[in-house]
């Protein structure tokens, strides 16, 4: 635990090193012989899970940085090229992006565990504060990482968050200029964020070393909150804790893999598949889910400076927790009142997170204010008060006593859980009603897609027909700039041969040059060329289309979505429903109506569309029955065209979807077997210790 180790390696070469640098002794005393309380439960495996996630984030991040271009004009495209062209680039990117979310899932569990079992109390105050510092560094790292893909949410998230500092009196504006390196968020901002995003994880790793050091000096807390007294209270770290942690990591990986392989965009925002545009603010700016509770606190306070102070205060207050809660009993297991309030606090945090994602109006604002008061009251009123008035139940004499008397009473949590669930349910119900009342626009109907679900595959016929519809109809206004002709022959795509793709390419004229005379010239397309865009630049597209530039369609099915709302977004996690984009695109294509309903005014030059937000769309009805001929006898109807072209556009948005789902199945089989092996090994190792 501390002091010089008496470990001596048996290998003479290792002995030679050990005499000069006692590193093996350090490892042995920290991770092998280190005594760990024998009553630890699975909530204690999250420390190991977090270390694992940090390592994985650094590893995937370093490889991604080899392919990424931190330039405002190229960043968005370079991320798309990573996903499309780099070997297993889609896997690396999903692992890194989902990994950030999983890192926060684990850290929140880890923090709530510390809160419940009083792991911040004497002598572990420094350990706890180091943890809060890691958490702050993680938030900064996560925020800057989210800026790097340079989509709309990246850009506007960066604008909103950096503007928080402008609330500081006197020096605020100059701090913001310093963060931007310019007069607004732009290329210099992206460059410095990339640099810092690469640096901060290593700082986190450094503070983690201090965190583990402090842990090994004070020793681990445990569910009963009594310090180990005799040898009987502890077991050696290896193999006991090691194997248990491995099992924990394996189970956590199952959740992680669920997102990576089956719902990589569930935790993200569709707007981030639209390249950053400093001239257009998305209608609803939402930070990543892990910041939502704090964002809700920020917005619930009507004064700007006070809002910013409250938001940062909500995190900083954690540093003072060891002194706010003066109760001598550590574990909430023996604190009947603290336990109830703990669970209420958990629900408050979750509800704040939900409110952070809602528009700041009506009942949401009021609920946000109430919950913000609850959040601070927990730390400033409830905990100090409880430590004075609460009568804790007697704690066991020692850890081994606690392990032997395991059949204790555990009926009380049920009451508080029921209260809390009822409270949460009624709040949610209220918010759904108000959300329904305020929106009132049509929800796109669900479709049956061949590519949905864990084993979904693209329908090759639909892809080929969709390509035809795109080429003959959409291509006159919409580009498809991330798709190269060679992609048409790649596995998981429309299933053309290489020769067919080359022949398809040669029908196009592609601008090339300059030649030796310095002139640009046109030549027939090659397989490596990308689909040429119908307009030379955005301004030309805008001018030719009455002011509204037709968007590039490569990513459209990922860049469009509609609000699922509570409780659907929870069911979606289990059903793997992630076809909001395709459903929306197919609905818009079929949503044109000649007759404008009463009460809706459509401006000159726009058309009425049932599913388009605001109903006034600049695009005229693009498809009509019989417009495109099909060779395979499929019906030539608008419904069929829409479905085919949407399937095709889903493929252009994610050409490696089939590979993703296929690899996902293999990974799941492996992980389940691995988790079972770890579980039975753990049972065997712990057989004598329980």
């Amino acid at each position, binding site marked *: 635990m501390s002091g010089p180790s008496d470990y001596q390696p048996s290998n003479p070469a290792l002995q030679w090193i050990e005499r000069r640098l006692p590193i093996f002794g350090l490892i042995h005393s920290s991770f092998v012989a280190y005594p760990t309380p024998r009553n630890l439960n699975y909530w204690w495996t999250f420390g190991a899970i977090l270390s694992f996630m940090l390592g994985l984030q650094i590893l995937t991040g370093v490889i991604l940085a080899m392919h990424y271009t931190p330039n405002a004009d190229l960043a968005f495209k370079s991320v798309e090229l990573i996903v499309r062209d780099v070997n297993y680039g889609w896997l690396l990117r999903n692992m890194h992006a989902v990994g950030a979310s999983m890192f926060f899932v684990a850290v929140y569990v880890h923090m709530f565990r510390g809160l419940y079992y009083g792991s911040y109390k004497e002598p572990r105050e420094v350990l706890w504060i180091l943890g809060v510092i890691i958490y702050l560094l993680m938030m900064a790292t996560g925020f800057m990482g989210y800026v790097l893909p340079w989509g709309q949410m990246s850009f*506007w998230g960066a604008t909103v968050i950096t*503007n928080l500092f402008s609330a500081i009196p006197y020096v605020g504006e100059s701090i913001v200029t310093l963060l931007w390196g310019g007069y607004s968020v732009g290329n210099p901002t992206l460059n410095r964020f990339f640099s810092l995003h690469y640096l901060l994880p290593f700082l986190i790793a450094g503070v983690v070393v201090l965190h583990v050091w402090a842990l090994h000096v004070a020793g681990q807390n445990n569910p009963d909150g009594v310090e180990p007294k005799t040898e009987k209270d502890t077991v050696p770290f290896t193999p006991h804790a090691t194997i248990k942690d491995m099992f924990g990591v394996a189970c956590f990986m199952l959740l992680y893999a669920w997102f990576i392989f089956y719902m990589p965009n569930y935790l993200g925002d569709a707007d981030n598949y639209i390249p950053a545009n400093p001239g257009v*603010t998305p209608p609803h700016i939402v930070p990543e889910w892990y910041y939502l509770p704090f964002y809700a606190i920020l917005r619930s306070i009507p004064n700007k400076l006070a809002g910013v102070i409250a938001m940062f205060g909500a995190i900083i207050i954690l540093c003072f927790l060891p002194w706010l809660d003066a109760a001598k009993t550590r574990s909430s297991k023996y604190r009947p009142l603290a336990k109830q309030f703990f669970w209420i606090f958990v629900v408050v945090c979750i509800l704040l997170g939900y409110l952070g994602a809602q528009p700041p109006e009506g009942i949401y604002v009021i609920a946000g204010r109430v919950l913000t008061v609850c959040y601070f009251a927990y730390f400033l009123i409830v905990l100090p008060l409880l430590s004075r008035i609460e009568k804790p139940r007697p704690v066991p004499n020692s850890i081994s006593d606690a392990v032997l008397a395991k059949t204790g009473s555990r009926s009380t949590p049920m009451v508080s859980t029921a209260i809390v669930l009822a409270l949460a349910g009624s709040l949610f119900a209220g918010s759904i009603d108000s959300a329904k009342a305020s929106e009132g626009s049509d929800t796109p109907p669900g479709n049956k897609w061949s590519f949905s679900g864990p084993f979904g595959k693209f329908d090759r016929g639909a892809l080929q027909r969709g390509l035809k519809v795109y080429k003959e109809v959409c291509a006159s206004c919409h580009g498809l700039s991330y798709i190269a002709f060679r992609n048409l022959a790649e596995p998981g795509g429309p299933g053309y041969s290489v020769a067919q793709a080359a022949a398809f390419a040669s029908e196009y004229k592609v601008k090339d040059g300059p030649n030796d005379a310095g002139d640009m010239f046109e030549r027939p397309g090659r397989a490596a060329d990308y689909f040429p865009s119908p307009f030379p630049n955005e301004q030309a597209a805008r001018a030719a289309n009455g002011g509204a530039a037709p968007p590039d369609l490569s990513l459209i099915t990922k860049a469009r979505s509609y609000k699922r709302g509570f409780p659907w977004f929870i069911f979606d996690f289990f059903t793997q429903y992630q076809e909001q984009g395709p459903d929306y695109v197919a609905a818009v294509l079929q949503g044109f109506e000649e007759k404008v309903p009463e009460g809706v005014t459509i401006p000159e030059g726009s058309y009425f569309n049932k599913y388009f937000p605001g109903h006034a769309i600049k695009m005229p009805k693009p498809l009509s029955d019989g417009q495109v001929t099909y060779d395979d006898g499929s019906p030539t109807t608008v419904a069929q065209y829409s479905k085919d072209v949407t399937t095709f556009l889903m493929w252009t948005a994610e050409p490696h979807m089939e590979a993703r789902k296929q690899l996902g199945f293999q990974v799941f089989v492996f992980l389940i077997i691995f988790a079972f092996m770890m579980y039975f090994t753990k049972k065997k190792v712990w057989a004598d210790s329980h």
Partner: protein
Amino acid sequence: MNPDASTIAAGAPIEVDLSPIAEGQDIKVFWRGKPIYISHRTKKQIDEARAVNVASLPDPQSDEARVKSGHEQWLVVIGICTHLGCIPIAHEGSYDGFFCPCHGSQYDSSGRIRQGPAPANLPVPPYQFVSDTKIQIG
């Protein structure tokens, strides 16, 4: 980490021709990466902006102080919400001015904050009239 020389040079003043902007219309130009709204206000908008009791505003400032005298029809403001930096939408909200979609701040036809979390009016960038139909921003 402050702006480098090229960024500062790119932030030099720009000239904008106002003649194509009809009454009731507005344009958005970019200066120093910031959107600048130039509105050709209607008589109604000017009257509304001037009829308000200045002392009752969250950030008291008269309309006269926010436009150049002799050019009352022209409102030039930086289109960045003073709350958290989103771009307000022109001709929206209940005050004939600007509405910020992010957190619901509303500005009037003089770009003054009337409702919502923003603490201050939309700032007026430094500009002057070079001629009757041309301004220089910066």
